């Protein structure tokens, strides 16, 4: 154990209680990676604080000792955002998982960061409310992790991302101060630090309480499963639906290989031999959804649907969604190893980029299964390879990178919801120039000048945070009089 961290152990035991400080090397290994298993690093020390003030004390102790620290929720992240530091402390939030309050009249919930995404909706359901962001891992992933990654999910096309649903955060700053960002109303006074913090991948502080918006459960939900011969037919249907001014709750597509994998894994009974399946979910007031449903149905038919199924009750819908939500894990049935990619293109470029992926696959002999959020152009190509075959892992990595290049050529993004983490920091300079990255890191310097909070993530090259020159203007009269803060 690094000497600096070793010296912290007694203090950590004092703060969290001896049972909540992990020093055993074997036990520490369980934290060596998150959902991205290709990056591994055993933390020098792991602590499991039980309260916000314990987190603050832990961080303050790390800050005073100059020891880096990383927060971890459920460890389901797919970009290595919670990858520990060998010379640092891993702060595990799993003990802080309570739903503190549901306010059904204000449509707000206050939750602890370790609470699972789904547990918020479960707690809100008796009031006819739900929490909208629904990443596929929602059964296990934590809301604190969702805040760090600005998680999306299948339904963010209509309802927005985590950042649209978080109205206040209690955070521990990288120097160990507890503070709130926002007041839960959703309207900011001053800078929108709440918005800037959400999606900062754990680099600006640690969340200890979260106020989220709850939404009324939709009156009705209809799910259409539509089969096509090719993904381009399916893509046409998507364009036509959006072109008709309809914003479905979700529009998802899977190609033949992804369907095959899902079938193997969960026997979702998708139409046999389909080249693509499209899932279109419409939710909302019954009067609206009925009208939209018939339009969507005829647009899907016109685009060349070979089969259409509808599911209106929750059990039927869950059966159909199971195929989609299990897709990542399912490819494990048809390939010994795979890379989950996460790229975004303007929706109208989906066809072009899918064609590029097909030719990348053909050229390299590396199979690619495609699962994507078709409504917002967010692709999750699954790059399949056999790690027992020499050279295949490298070839797969190359294809995976080339897919991101293809996304960027179309004016897209290197990540739509999985984050940059350690995995994609090297791609950041392809999307942003050095001035952009430098400017983003001004925010980092404001929050974490010592660069101890989840260092080494997002940015390929850290920025040195110099001393900021002091004010040199006469104070505003209202400030001089102690009446106002000014910038």
């Amino acid at each position: 154990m690094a000497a600096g961290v070793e010296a912290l152990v007694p203090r950590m035991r004092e703060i969290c209680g001896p049972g909540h400080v992990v020093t055993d090397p074997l036990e520490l290994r369980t934290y060596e990676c998150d959902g991205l298993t290709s990056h591994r690093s055993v933390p020098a020390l792991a602590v499991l604080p039980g309260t916000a003030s314990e987190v603050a004390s832990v961080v303050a102790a790390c800050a005073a000792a100059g020891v880096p620290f990383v927060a971890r929720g459920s460890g389901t992240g797919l970009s290595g955002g919670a990858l520990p530091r060998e010379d640092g402390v891993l702060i595990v939030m799993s003990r802080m998982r309570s739903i503190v309050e549901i306010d059904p009249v204000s449509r707000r919930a206050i939750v602890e960061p370790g609470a699972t995404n789904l547990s918020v909706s479960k707690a809100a359901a008796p009031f006819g409310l739900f929490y909208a962001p629904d990443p596929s891992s929602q059964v296990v992933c934590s809301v604190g992790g969702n805040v760090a990654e600005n998680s999306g999910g299948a339904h963010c096309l209509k309802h927005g991302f985590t950042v649209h649903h978080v109205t206040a955060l209690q955070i521990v700053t990288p120097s160990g101060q507890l503070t709130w960002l926002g007041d839960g109303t959703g309207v900011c006074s001053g800078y929108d630090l709440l918005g800037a913090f959400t999606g900062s991948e754990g680099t600006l502080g640690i969340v200890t309480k979260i106020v989220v918006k709850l939404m009324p459960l939709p009156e009705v939900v209809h799910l259409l499963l539509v089969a096509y011969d090719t993904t381009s037919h399916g893509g046409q249907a998507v364009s036509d639906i959006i072109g008709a001014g309809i914003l479905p709750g979700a529009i998802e597509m899977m190609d033949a290989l992804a369907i095959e994998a899902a079938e193997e894994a969960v026997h979702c009974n998708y139409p046999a031999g389909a080249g693509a399946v499209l899932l279109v979910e419409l939710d909302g007031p019954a009067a609206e959804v009925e009208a939209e449903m018939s339009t969507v149905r005829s647009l899907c038919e016109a685009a060349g649907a070979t089969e259409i199924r509808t599911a209106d009750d929750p059990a039927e819908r869950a059966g159909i969604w199971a195929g989609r939500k299990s897709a990542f894990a399912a490819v494990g049935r048809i390939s010994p190893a795979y890379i989950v990619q996460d790229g975004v293109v303007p929706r109208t470029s989906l066809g072009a980029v899918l064609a590029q992926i097909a030719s990348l696959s053909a050229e390299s002999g590396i199979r690619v299964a495609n699962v994507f959020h078709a409504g917002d152009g967010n692709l999750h190509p699954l790059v399949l390879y056999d790690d027992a075959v020499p050279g295949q892992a490298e070839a797969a990595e190359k294809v995976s990178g080339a897919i991101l290049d293809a996304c960027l050529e179309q004016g897209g993004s290197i990540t739509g919801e999985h984050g940059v983490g350690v995995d994609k920091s090297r791609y950041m300079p392809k999307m942003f120039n050095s001035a952009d990255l430098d400017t983003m890191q001004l925010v980092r310097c404001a929050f974490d000048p010592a660069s101890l909070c989840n260092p080494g993530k997002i940015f390929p090259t850290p920025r040195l945070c110099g001393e900021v020159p002091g004010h040199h203007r006469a104070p505003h009269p209202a400030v001089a009089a102690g009446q106002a803060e000014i910038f």
Partner: protein
Amino acid sequence: MDTERSVVPAARDALVAACPVVRKGVPASDAVAGLVPSFVAFPASTDEASALLRVAAAHDLSVVPRGAGTGLGWGLPPVSCDLVIDLQAMDQVIEHAAGDLVARVQAGATMGNLASVLSLAGQQLAVDAPADATVGGVVATGTAGPRRFRYGAPRDLLIGITVVRADGVVAHSGGKVVKNVAGYDLGKLFAGSQGTLGLITEVTFRLHPLPAAAAWVTGDFDPNVPSALAGAASAVASAAGSALVPSAVELLWTGSPAVLRVGVLLEGTPSGVAERAKQMAELLAGAGATVVATSETPFRWWQPEPGAPGTVVRVTFWVRQLAEVLGALATAGVSTGIRPAVSGAAGAGVLYAWLDPGVADEIAARFVRALRDRLSGVFAGSADGTGLSRGGMAVLAAPTALLAAAGAGQPVPGLDLMRAVKDQFDPGHRMCPGRFPWGR
């Protein structure tokens, strides 16, 4: 005040070299809260804007960005204004990718022009703001009207931004896809920053389809009945929490004429809207509204009017406390003998109290103090020991004398971090110095 400040004469030549269109500021059209800038520059591109800010940095000039000027009177007056950078020459809708529901726009384009371009494809930027305001101004001030209930504020629709820093460096964040988590979101930071962090030159928005139909359902409550405030508050909460998916849940409460009205906007398909409007009318009647009406014509009463004279106070709250907030407004009014017009997106937890410009500054200041006292009681009552204040109050616009007389504001959460952000982005404090009225 900064009256003795003399601008280095060399700055003029450098500014002209940076941007061909630079002129002397004139009191009639260029004064910002009484401060007449030495120069007004009209950049035609982000590059020219960058060159201007480099000159401003080299010559230590204070800078105030300006769009159409509709919101310049909001916030505290700046303490210094050497250079106004006017964005109106950058007025192009650069790209409207209709199939992607995305538009890239120069900051000086007006909301009205953008709306007409987008409407050709049956699309819209779902923000309620004056048609003559610029998109840059709307983003910088965070202007949002009734439909913030469904679509959020400009920050929620902004997917990419280009800014020029105080030191002249040009930076981008986001992009032109709706779903994107690469890097920090500088757009969130700049939205609502009122020009204090840098200059916004280009923005990319997520768009929405124009609805095929819209209906406005209103429920009137009798303002003379003591229980009406609570009734209207509960109607707002029911409408906002209903599965009928309103786009706006507004409240209007004025003294003369005496009106207490809940207004709900429904958007969608013609048949869907007709049915939902019927159900919403029943909901409002069930909540105690005495007169319920449905109309296809938009009501105008919610329109925010940045730059309008008088005092505007914004109160934000959790909807559960709406009745108490209305009570605080009533009490503060009674104790000072004035009656503000109150309106706003009550279902989203926002109300504005508008004081008539005829109200004397000291009376208005007394009202502001009284309201703050009442509200701090309301919000403190909801405190849960974690330090979370469930609401806030800000004086958005007011005569300077009133601001001075109204006294210290409420603490803003995260203030130390905000200061640190400002120091990083604008270490010389030259961008709209003095603009932010913390906690008022």
